[in-house]
């Protein structure tokens, strides 16, 4: 085996950290994103709950967050991080900026997916007397799910990229290992190895995403 310059335990820890960060922030981020994207779709000028103010506010908040480079975002929200998880550093602390990063990103992707749902389906829902929540729950989300799954996939991969930078607040993870111990220390074997781990991650996520999306789109 090639000498990587870091012990295996370190690699395993990094992998665990990445998985932890990705899944927890993805989970929370997805929930927020579903909420926000639904709000955007419902309140937009062509939506069934047209509301200029809410739309503009959510749209702007999403844009503002999306505008801030992730590394700066992390610093900006340190106080928030402290408030929520009690510390500003480490893997758990990284969850806060990661969520703040991924939620508006997924919001945009989901918004696009949900907007593709056929207007006729929404009319069917309205005709059945569905509440707004029910329209979303039983009609919009299920009909968009093939596209939503791919959006989550795309988002997850973006999130892995962000976790690499979360090393800046001591979050660890494979991406950070690649950057600091691999890239910055010019440890090319490690860099390649960690990138390969990332590729395996991404490829698996994409494969799973494609599988479910295709399965669901078949009908």
């Amino acid at each position, binding site marked *: 085996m090639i000498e990587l310059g870091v012990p295996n335990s370190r690699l395993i820890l990094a992998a665990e950290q990445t998985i932890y960060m990705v899944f927890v922030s993805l989970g929370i981020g997805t929930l927020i994103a579903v909420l926000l994207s639904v709000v955007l779709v419902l309140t937009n000028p062509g939506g069934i709950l047209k509301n200029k103010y809410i739309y503009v506010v959510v749209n702007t908040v999403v844009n503002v967050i999306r505008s801030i480079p992730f590394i700066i975002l992390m610093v900006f929200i340190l106080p928030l991080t402290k408030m929520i998880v009690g510390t500003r550093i480490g893997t758990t602390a990284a969850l806060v900026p990661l969520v703040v990063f991924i939620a508006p990103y997924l919001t945009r992707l989901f918004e696009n997916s949900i907007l593709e749902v056929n207007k006729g389906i929404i009319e069917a829902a309205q005709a059945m007397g569905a509440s707004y929540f029910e329209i979303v729950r039983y009609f919009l989300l299920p009909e968009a799910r093939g596209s939503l799954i791919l959006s989550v996939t795309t988002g997850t991969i973006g999130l892995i990229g962000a976790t690499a930078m979360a090393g800046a607040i001591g979050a660890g993870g494979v991406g950070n290992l690649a950057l600091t111990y691999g890239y*910055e*220390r010019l440890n090319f074997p490690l860099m390649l190895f960690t990138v390969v781990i990332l590729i395996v991650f991404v490829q698996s996520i994409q494969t799973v995403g494609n599988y479910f999306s295709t399965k669901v789109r078949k009908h």
Partner: protein
Amino acid sequence: GGDDTGSAKKEITYSKSQGPYSELFEKGIKPILEKKGYKVTGKDMSDLLQADVALNEGEVDFNVEQHTAYMENFNKKQNGHLVALTPIPTVPAGIYAGSKSSLDQISDGAKVAVPNDAANTARCYALLQKVGWIKLNPEKDLSTVTQQDIIENPHHIQFTEMKSLNIPAVRGDFDFIVITGSIVYNANIDPSTALATEDILPHLLLQLVVLDKNKDAQWAKDIVSAYHSDEFKKYMGEHNNGLWYIPKDNQ
């Protein structure tokens, strides 16, 4: 840039970062060079590795951002041909207060922040060894040690390696922080509040670095002499508030 080493070369470029070294160069050295008729252009390169690659490729002429240890590592790994011409004033790393305000408050399981950038992690572990909190593997080169090389950690200190720039912002989350001078400088921390300061190893002194084949170029010599000039010494005398460690050559 370019590789023309002719004595006629008066336009020189360097890669520039947002640290004290580039700034020191701009304020203390550049005016001297300009008086000699040089046109000096800085190119913003926020990443030292990229800056070295550019230097190695001849896309810029020199930089003043690294110590010998880093440069040698670069030469080894990237097939580089960089040489150090002269040490320059360097800002030492220091231990600063986190939530604890003096070294003897070190306690079991204390939290300590350490920079995660390649150029500085080792320096900080060396400093921690100097104050007696840890013991490093004596077989390893002090300038490249990592966390794995700690062989004794009696206080069970929890190290958090993170981007050093962010350390001042989260000072309160640690018991102590270890940061390099450039961070102290950027974060406007009073250097005199350091609880301990590193003994700068010769290997860790910042250097004027150029491409091997340019080491005898007239412009290179002129930069070296600027760093050694009285004018610069005077400037340092007026502007050093304790931040800078000044190598003997420049004193």
